[in-house]
């Protein structure tokens, strides 16, 4: 786009565009003052510096987020014994036996800080959500870039944008009030709010993310690949399945990882729809508690400087690390894909 613009319109610049005309007039006015040049240079420098400093805000923000999260999170590591983050031995009141348990119950006279149920809960929601959303998201991407004619695409694309624009709290509320009933009726689950309800809600959020990235990647496949495949007599589906998809599979993998990062970080849907039971389970029909829901549910109520306060920041640090890593992987892959494709 950029390159085309640069080459294709050089000739046109000869006839003076009204904007350029206006610029010229403005110019003539400024040029009349003689001290303009020297003053101008200092001004230019100043402005460039100002813009540069502004552009650092994003990086500074990330650094500050990192610092403030980890500064408090690390304090949890120093005040709470490390083994406590895995689990603790507790004496069972009824059988009087000592058992090893993974418990997250950070209040009470003997608080327990096991991160295992929170991490397993997070993935029990995020993995199915990614699975569901990858299927539909890649399908949508293929539909938009390979099947739909331009007019149909113009019609279909706003739907994805619409889905992406729904606030997550609305999806959470919907899953809590209506969606959970449907799922309970279909699967006859004993937990009304469970990991699957959360996963379906979360997949609504990440389908548009995956679909739009997949579409971009497919669009960027060089025409030669397509043309070569058609020239060999392949049909459209054969071209897509055996030429295009293998060619841009890293890009699609990046889309899926990006979607998963979003799924792990999603908060309002899981806090409302997963039932919030901090248990270690692999049953998708049981209630679970994710890391995000734990922070959202508990941070508002802890005293600053208490162990629970630091433990919640530690949970936040873990969350930050996981999603940051996933973003990094996505960026890394996309960077390489961009070089190969024309993105």
């Amino acid at each position, binding site marked *: 786009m950029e390159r085309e613009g640069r080459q294709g319109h050089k000739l046109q610049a000869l006839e003076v565009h009204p904007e350029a005309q206006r610029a010229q007039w403005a110019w003539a006015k400024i040029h009349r003052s003689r001290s303009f040049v020297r003053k101008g240079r200092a001004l230019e420098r100043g402005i460039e510096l100002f813009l540069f400093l502004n552009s650092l805000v994003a990086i500074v923000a990330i650094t500050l987020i990192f610092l403030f999260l980890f500064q408090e999170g690390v304090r949890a590591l120093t005040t709470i014994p490390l083994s406590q983050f895995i689990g603790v031995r507790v004496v069972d009141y009824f059988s009087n036996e000592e058992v090893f348990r993974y418990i997250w*119950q950070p209040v*009470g006279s003997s608080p327990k800080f096991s991160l295992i149920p929170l991490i397993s809960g997070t993935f029990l929601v995020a993995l199915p959500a990614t699975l569901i959303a990858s299927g539909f998201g890649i399908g949508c991407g293929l539909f938009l870039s390979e099947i739909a004619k331009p007019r149909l695409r113009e019609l279909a694309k706003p739907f994805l944008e619409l889905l992406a624009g729904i606030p997550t709290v609305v999806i959470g509320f919907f899953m809590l009030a209506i969606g959970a*009933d449907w799922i309970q009726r279909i699967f006859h689950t004993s937990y009304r709010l469970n990991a699957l309800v959360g996963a379906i809600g979360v997949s609504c959020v990440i389908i548009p993310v995956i679909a739009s990235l997949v579409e971009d990647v497919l669009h960027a496949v060089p025409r030669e690949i397509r043309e070569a495949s058609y020239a060999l007599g392949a049909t459209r589906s054969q071209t897509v399945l055996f030429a295009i998809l293998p060619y841009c599979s890293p890009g699609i993998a990046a889309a899926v990882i990006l979607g998963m990062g979003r799924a792990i970080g999603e908060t309002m849907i899981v806090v409302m729809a997963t039932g919030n039971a901090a248990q270690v389970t692999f049953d998708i029909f049981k*209630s679970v508690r994710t890391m995000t829901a734990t922070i959202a*549910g508990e941070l508002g109520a802890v005293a600053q400087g208490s162990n629970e306060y630091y433990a919640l920041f530690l949970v936040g640090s873990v969350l930050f690390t996981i999603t940051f890593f996933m973003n990094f992987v996505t960026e890394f892959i996309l960077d390489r894909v961009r070089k190969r494709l024309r993105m």
Partner: protein
Amino acid sequence: MKAFIKMVLMSGVFFLGASMAQDGWASELVTVKGSDTMVIVAQRWAEEYMKKHPDATIQVTGGGSGTGIASLINGTTDLANASRPIKQEEIEAARRLGREPKEVKVAMDALGIVVHKDNPVERLSLRQLMGIYTGHVNNWKELGGKDLPIMRYSRESNSGTYLFFKEHVLKDMDYASDCQNLPGTAAVADAVAKDPKGIGYGGVAYFDRPNLKVIKVSKADDQKAIDPIDRSDLKRTKVHYDVVWSGEYPLARPLFVYSLRESAEIKRFLDWILSEEGQKIAAELGYIPINVAAVAGR
């Protein structure tokens, strides 16, 4: 460029105005924060009080008893609602800052145990409740009910209710890990109303709705089970005040408001809460008033 300047000017006006008016609002506003159990009544108190005194602004936020007291000590709220008494270390934290927390008992609350209307179980002892919530009793059959697994609904760990239940029923043991921690007592009520296998706990005030049954609780297996509900009124769930006042019902607790700073507005508000009018509102919402006159007048 002009748009930028306009925006900057606009935001400038905002901040200028805010700083100009700063002492204007600080004198009127009273912030109340704390217990989710009390947020219903606190909010109603604020609403009615502001109707009577249009010059006052009372701002109410929930968040849990711990939050309320912590904010009180940190200075971010004027009054703290608490469904548990203040802890010794909290008093000391306040003293270190040179302040003495003042306690006012504003009402009482009966913690109800609630099951679905279709559940045949009528009574549970504290030990049975402990068995259920620690994960040792897993089927209603063991308690004389149907052959169904028990779904445990609990509150979020920041609530005073959660702590009270943990201390008084679970004897400080841990909740079973499959307890679903819901963010509010209303959510517990909603969940149990939809789940014939469910059991939940919370302020009786929340359980005035169809499909729910508040059951009797006994202190020990062989003792008489006490019903916290006055069944003589069939139309609505009404708390049985006598069993709560006498201490017969094992799961009742006082509700407090704490303050550090003395001001005329705060005092006027607290006095009004304790007046007949304020207590009547508490009674209407299903709490147990401490001012007997408020009930006698009904």
